């Protein structure tokens, strides 16, 4: 007796294998029968990769993202392992749909296979539940905020909603127990149920046999080897597709660490749930829609429940004469709805600049968190969020957006990439502030009046004097209130343009009379004429006048002096980006310092430098340095800066708008320091 005979004698494996492989296939093997096998294969792959991932994943709020980062970025082969798990999960959805279509179209749901069909529906629900619970596990911004939406929907279930939500979340808020519970569901409870249902599904499939597609094109055959070969080739194709996706996207993406304090407006479910996401957004279900305050329940519970109920009833409906036709029609209508809502959801996102900016920012944060973890040889015990919380490159732009971007811009945007229109910029662009390039642009007559520098400020566009303002107010009273903003430029032009061109003047007056309240035209014409006759052009600031009027007339020697002074002033900032050039130009810079001390070009008439006390301009001592910026931001109205002339720059000192830590983060970012 050989070894295999001995084993067979005790286990009967040959009989088992034979019954597994030599199953009767009516009409012979066909490619359309591969979907059940490819799905089973996908589940096996998920089990294999899932178990290996399980060995390295740590479900807690301080270690989930961190352990996934470690798998993805540090462990050899980890990116491939997680990539296969992720993209196989993505492919399982179309495989499920194809299998479902085959079952419906071929009528495989009909008697006596009702239970098998219902088990299949159960498997569908389980696979989607496993996907949903897996989405949270990396504990990144996308998974965190998307899943929060789902658990809030659970909380809206009538009567038991709150209890269910607490049970799933493990607490009132998301935390360790949310992850341990989701992980246990994802890797333990749901897969165990899945295995039980698969066993029942396959056992019933074997009991009733395959539902052949009629008419049969070939003679009847056996499952092995013809159908098995087709299934194996199909499984290889599925695996190749997964590997191509993994290769193309360089593994599965990991977002920025979940931050409960930072709402993530680009939170979206995985693509196969996007139709539901879009469905919930339909106006029909808004509070002012036909369902009133029940809209959310109807959209998230009642309608999906009815659809699922309809799917459950398909074997019963299929008994009627037109039942099968109805089922096939329902299938395609459902798929069309799924396709339509999914497409609409993606198209809306593609056209939404806020969504796109949030996605880009999240990608930046994710890349930065990983970069910091690598640079610092690990993540602090508080978790990856601490890396970003103390990082100037991450926090600086956010602080700039919230504190500075209502007046300033940063390379034309608000720090986080959203462009600020010129009309909303009333202070200089601060990107690379105090660098040579920035100062040279500032002192350039062609640039000073642009919005990069003083274009939006009152230094270039000073307001009219008080007497003129009063006269303008008198005219405003005679205008229709709703058109005053439109008429304002004409009014301002009249008040601030001495001896204007006659045609222009008449045009401005015509604009005002057109905006007049009834019967005020004559009075407006008279007042506007007087205003124009007394018009005074307000004076631009002294600095702007020097740049516009004096600098263009500088001699070659003065221009050389100006360049040296720019280099010297910029060197005061000690900017990291100029470290090398400042070291290289040490002699040139020293000459600039000496020129400032020698009162060259009259800079120190207004600006303090060494022994020269200066005047009303900001001090040049340490200009743009960390300390200078800190003191300036704490109190711009200090005598060293704008003094009493400061009329709009708020103080950001401790106890006011920013903490000392936030102030430092902002300053370090502005200076390009890590």
């Amino acid at each position, binding site marked *: 007796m050989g070894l295999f005979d001995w084993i067979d004698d005790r286990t009967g494996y040959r009989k088992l294998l034979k019954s597994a492989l030599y199953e009767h296939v009516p009409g012979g093997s066909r490619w359309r029968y591969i979907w059940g096998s490819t799905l089973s294969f996908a589940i096996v792959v998920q089990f294999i990769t899932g178990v290996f991932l399980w060995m390295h994943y740590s479900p807690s709020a301080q270690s989930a993202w961190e352990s996934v980062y470690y798998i993805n970025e540090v462990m050899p082969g980890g990116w491939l392992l997680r990539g296969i798990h992720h993209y196989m999960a993505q492919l399982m959805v179309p495989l499920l749909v194809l299998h479902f279509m085959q079952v419906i179209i071929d009528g495989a749901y009909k008697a006596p296979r009702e239970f098998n069909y219902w088990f299949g529906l159960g498997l569908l629900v389980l696979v989607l539940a496993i996907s949903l619970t897996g989405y949270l596990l990396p504990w990144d911004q996308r998974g965190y905020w998307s899943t929060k939406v789902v658990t809030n929907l659970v909380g809206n279930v009538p009567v038991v909603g709150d209890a269910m939500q607490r049970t799933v979340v493990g607490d009132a808020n998301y935390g360790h127990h949310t992850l341990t519970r989701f992980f246990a569901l994802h890797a333990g409870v749901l897969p165990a149920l899945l295995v039980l249902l698969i066993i029942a599904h396959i056992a019933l499939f074997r009991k009733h046999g395959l539902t052949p597609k009629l008419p049969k094109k070939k003679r009847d055959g056996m499952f092995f080897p013809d159908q098995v*070969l087709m299934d194996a080739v199909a499984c290889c194709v599925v695996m190749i597709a997964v590997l191509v996706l993994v290769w193309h996207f360089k593994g599965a993406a990991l977002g920025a660490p979940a931050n409960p304090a930072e709402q993530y407006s680009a939170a979206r479910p995985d693509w196969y749930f996007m139709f539901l996401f879009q469905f919930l957004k339909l106006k029909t279900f808004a509070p002012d829609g036909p369902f009133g305050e029940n809209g959310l329940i109807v959209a998230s519970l009642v309608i999906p429940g009815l659809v699922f109920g309809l799917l459950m009833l398909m074997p019963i409906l299929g008994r009627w004469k037109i039942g099968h036709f109805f089922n096939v029609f329902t299938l395609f209508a459902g798929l069309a709805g799924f396709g339509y809502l999914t497409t609409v959801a993606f198209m809306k996102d593609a056209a939404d600049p806020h969504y796109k900016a949030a996605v880009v920012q999240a990608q930046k944060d994710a890349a930065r968190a990983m970069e910091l973890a690598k640079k610092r040889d690990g993540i602090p015990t508080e978790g990856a969020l601490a890396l970003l919380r103390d990082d100037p490159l991450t926090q600086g732009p956010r602080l700039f957006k919230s504190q500075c971007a209502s007046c300033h811009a940063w390379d034309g945007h608000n720090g986080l990439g959203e462009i600020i229109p010129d009309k909303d910029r009333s202070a200089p662009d601060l990107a690379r502030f105090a660098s040579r390039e920035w100062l040279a642009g500032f002192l350039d007559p062609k640039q000073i009046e642009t919005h990069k520098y003083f274009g939006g400020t009152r230094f270039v566009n000073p307001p009219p004097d008080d007497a003129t303002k009063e006269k303008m107010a008198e005219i405003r009273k005679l205008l229709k209130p709703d058109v005053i903003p439109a008429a304002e430029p004409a009014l301002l032009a009249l008040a601030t343009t001495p001896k204007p061109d006659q045609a222009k003047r008449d045009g401005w007056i015509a604009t005002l009379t057109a905006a007049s309240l009834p019967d005020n035209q004559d009075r407006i014409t008279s007042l506007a004429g007087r205003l124009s006759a007394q018009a005074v052009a307000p004076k631009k600031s002294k600095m702007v006048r020097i740049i516009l009027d004096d600098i263009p007339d500088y001699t070659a020697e003065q221009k050389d002096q100006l360049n040296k002074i720019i280099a010297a002033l910029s060197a005061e900032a000690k900017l990291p980006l100029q470290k090398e050039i400042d070291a290289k130009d040490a002699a040139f810079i020293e000459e600039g310092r000496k020129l400032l001390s020698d009162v060259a070009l009259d800079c120190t008439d207004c600006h303090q430098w060494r022994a020269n006390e200066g005047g009303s301009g900001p001090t040049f001592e340490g200009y743009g340095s960390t300390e200078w910026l800190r003191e300036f931001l704490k109190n711009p109205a200090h005598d060293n800066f704008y003094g009493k002339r400061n009329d709009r720059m708020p103080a950001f000192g401790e106890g006011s708008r920013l903490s000392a830590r936030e102030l430092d983060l902002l300053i370090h970012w502005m200076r390009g320091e890590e």
Partner: protein
Amino acid sequence: MTEPTTTEPGQPGDRREFLKSAACAVFGTACIIPPVVAGVTVLTAPIRELVPEGVKVKLSSLDALPPGPPRLFSVSVERTDAWTRHQRNAVGAVFLERTGERTVKALSASCPHLGGSIEYRPEQKDFYCGIHDSAFTAQGDVVQPSPAYRGLDTLEVEINAAGEIWVVFREFKAGIKEKIAVG
């Protein structure tokens, strides 16, 4: 109903059936290779890692370690445990004994039998591991009969000009006669 096609051994279709069966095996195996390879690569990563160097750590000073029985010091080092960077992470313990004016002996507190924790018994003046009753003399040699194959592992000690006692902390493979560093 048509009869299923079957091929008996030795018939003309035999070779064709064999090729089909072989193709099933090839494709069936090929499709499962990527997840298994990826998983095994990740799982066995620790095997491919180099044995790390010992960590030099300051444990005490000559002033604080007068002559007398050995004293136990816990060893905490800056360390990255997978993804977490620890500033002070407890990694083990060391016995230090002052043996001369500027000489100190350092013994690992990890049992060379199977890694249990060693204690010093002042009454018996010996070292003892309660897990499998391994005992060692005050010098660290095995007291027979003992399950341990070697004596306690000595560690490299450096004393600088300021009298600080630095020890190169290492771990050694347990259960064998040779002293082989593993971490």
